């Protein structure tokens, strides 16, 4: 069985998280992904966290994870010969992914029109915080800026504590996933019509409509509470400390009976203050006090299992250790060990969706410039002398 994206060649001129995550998904599902790294490599190589805490461009967890299954070409596209070599690769590619500011792509003379001139079938996927047009298109950004401008930050955290970012690079990951979904639509269209196009993904625009019911309530009803609710949407949707970690409960009306059963508190089910969801909302503080007291006496694995059996919506806040040892994730083969020649063995999650046992392959992240010569020779069709002149992009 061929992998779903086999036969596609993808050039990734991507840095850090968003475009590389998009490229990682292409690679995982079977496309040949060529990562074009600037001299010295993608900045995620110098970010870490590193194996054993020792900085090394080949052992940054961020790079290792985001670049599985790709091949690396070290090439300075700012130099005329490097740009020319890049365009030779574009000629032979189906997709190009990039996350530079629009003005930087113009400066490199690598706009969609320039790529289209050498390959009218090529799909260019651009993913940036603000997209290709509009007054902020060339504003500088990173994950924090995008998280703020996309509206998710204002609603995260407590009222007193102020807005807070979610862990890791959530805005960038959202950008990468959106870029993949959008880009794949263009790939389908290209395979149907023989024509490529420019796919413009703005992380801000992708994020802004996603605030649950907030946007519809505001635009249709004019209602907006403007509150940050911390760890509790209400007493019955929130996070509570337990003896060895934190529990998360999310009770819908139909779960009240099984929830109080698993809690071992049938008296709460019978309590007239808590009969309907509206009653529970009205006596929110009373119920929250009950939940705090109850959760403090529970341990996370035990209550999670009892809740699972009893069909009560109780999960626990999984740490990285909990993920690695998760019976569920391990049963499903979602955690795979990958060997890397410098970083050694580490555990990688995947795939994001399952299409059969052979659809997704991890592969390891490439060493910097590991495939420069074979790709420039075999794909770009450069002669040995030209490849040597490019000097593997190593800075002078």
């Amino acid at each position, binding site marked *: 069985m061929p992998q779903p994206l086999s*036969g596609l060649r993808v050039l990734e001129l991507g840095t850090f998280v968003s475009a590389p995550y998009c490229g990682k998904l292409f690679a995982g599902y079977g496309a040949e992904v060529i990562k074009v790294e600037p001299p010295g490599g993608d900045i995620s190589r110098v*970010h*870490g*966290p590193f194996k*054993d805490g020792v900085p090394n461009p080949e052992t940054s*967890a961020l790079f290792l*994870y985001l670049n599985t299954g790709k091949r690396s070409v070290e090439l300075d596209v700012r130099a005329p010969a490097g740009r020319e070599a890049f365009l030779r690769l574009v000629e032979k590619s189906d997709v190009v992914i990039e996350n530079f500011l629009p003005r930087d792509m113009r400066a490199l003379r690598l706009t969609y029109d320039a790529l289209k001139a050498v390959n009218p079938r090529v799909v260019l996927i651009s993913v940036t915080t603000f997209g290709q*047009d*509009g007054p902020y298109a060339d*504003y*500088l950004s990173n994950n924090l*800026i995008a998280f*703020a401008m*996309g509206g*998710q930050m*204002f*609603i*995260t955290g407590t009222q007193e504590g*102020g*807005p*807070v*970012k*979610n*862990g*890791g690079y959530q805005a960038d990951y959202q950008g990468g996933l959106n870029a993949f979904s*959008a880009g*794949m639509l*263009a*790939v*389908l269209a290209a395979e149907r*019509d023989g024509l490529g196009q*420019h*796919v413009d993904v703005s992380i801000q*625009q992708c994020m*802004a*409509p996603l*605030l649950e019911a907030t*946007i*519809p*309530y505001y*635009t249709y009803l004019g209602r907006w509470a403007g509150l940050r609710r911390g760890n509790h949407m209400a007493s019955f*949707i*929130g*996070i509570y400390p337990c003896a060895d970690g*934190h529990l*998360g409960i999310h009770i819908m009306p139909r779960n009240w009976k099984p929830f109080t059963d698993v809690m071992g508190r049938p008296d709460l089910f019978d309590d007239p203050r808590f009969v309907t969801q509206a009653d529970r909302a009205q006596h929110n503080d009373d119920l929250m006090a009950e939940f705090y007291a109850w959760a403090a006496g529970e341990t996370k694995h035990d209550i999670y299992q009892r809740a699972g059996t009893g069909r009560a919506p109780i999960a626990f806040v999984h*740490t*990285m250790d909990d*993920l690695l040892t998760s*019976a*569920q*994730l391990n*049963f499903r083969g*979602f955690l795979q060990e990958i060997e890397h020649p410098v970083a050694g063995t580490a555990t990688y*999650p995947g*795939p994001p*969706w*399952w*299409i*059969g046992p052979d659809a997704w392959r991890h592969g390891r992240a490439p060493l910097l410039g590991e495939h420069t010569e074979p790709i420039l020779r075999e794909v770009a069709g450069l002669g040995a002398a030209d490849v040597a002149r490019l000097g593997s992009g190593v800075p002078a």
Partner: protein
Amino acid sequence: MTMPLDGIRVVDLTMVWAGPFGARMLGDYGAEVIKVESPRQWDLLRSLGLIPRTEARWYNKSAYFNHNNRDKYALALDLNDPRGKDVLLQLCAVSDILVENFRTDVMDNLGLTYEAVRAVNPRIIYISMPGHGKTGPEKDYVAYGSNVEQLAGLVSLSGYESDEPMKTGFSYGDPMAGTALVGAVATAMRQRSLTGEGMYLELAQRENLTMFVGEYLVDYSMNRQARPPIGNRHPTFAPHNRYQCAGEDRWVTIACETGAQFAALCAVIGQPQLAADPRFATNAGRKANEAELDTFIETWTRTRGHYEVMHLLQRAGVPTGAVLTTPELLADPHLRSRGAWVEHTHPDAGTWEMEAPPWKLSRTPGHIRMPAPGFGEHNSYVLRDLLRLPEERIAELYAAGITADDPDESLHR
């Protein structure tokens, strides 16, 4: 000029947010999406619109439903009745994709397993969107919206500096699963074009979101060291934080990644000497003394509006972004300029603004083509025009309550 999913028919059995949102985007980009609801069990979002129950067809006026279900047709069909199930299988026979997000045992109990659907259409792509997946010891555990991010490891990494874990501000796993659905469908269609065969595809919401913290998992597996929450700070860069601005609950984010950006920041806030101060001259120095640096910055931001700070600093080359509220998102000049919000009219709900399709595909753009369907609005289209069922059979479906033009709303009040 066609849309990317023109000619693709989708049977949408999903409810609430993740599935309906994802299927709606399939509709935005050209697919014919047919949403199936039972006369006795509609999509819960119809009930969550805050519409007075006294209004006529109040269940068609929920904006929460209408945003997530535009560009779809609606068929009312009770799958618990064998005659309803037969109609669904007939629909599957002429469709490309089926997507469901029921409890893990529901489709099996209905007799609508992948094998049963494949038997009527070997080219169908059958997609399940469970919380945990349909295999494994936790497959039957209940996991709603906010549970998914807890299971995905994200909550353990989020929160104020050295504080307790913090949830996101919404059911984050849902829209991420919906966004992934489009990529999953496209991936599956590519595979089908290679093999000529359909397939079963599983998008476990918990796994999809775990991908968003993958570097932490790789790190932990190599180093066995926990990384507690660091709030708005960055592991290596400084300054990198959120700062209070003039006005009630108004904030701005600033993130310097280079010395040049930091020098520009110092100049704009009227403290050019900071850039030369040995404590702040290197990134390592700025990181070590970031709390002190933040005081200088916030003293300046407090006296200005958050948009004002953003424009002043961006003009000087400093990555800066206002922390936008919902009303500000709707009014934001940039999102306006990109056409992110579009006026829209629905026959029952009236005229208001909703989000455009999120991605701009230059040659095959998406469109809002149809308002969200009223309950059972396209029964006749599906049963008569598409499936060409005999009139007597349609009459039987109505008489038995297997389909209906009006829901039994007494069950949802």
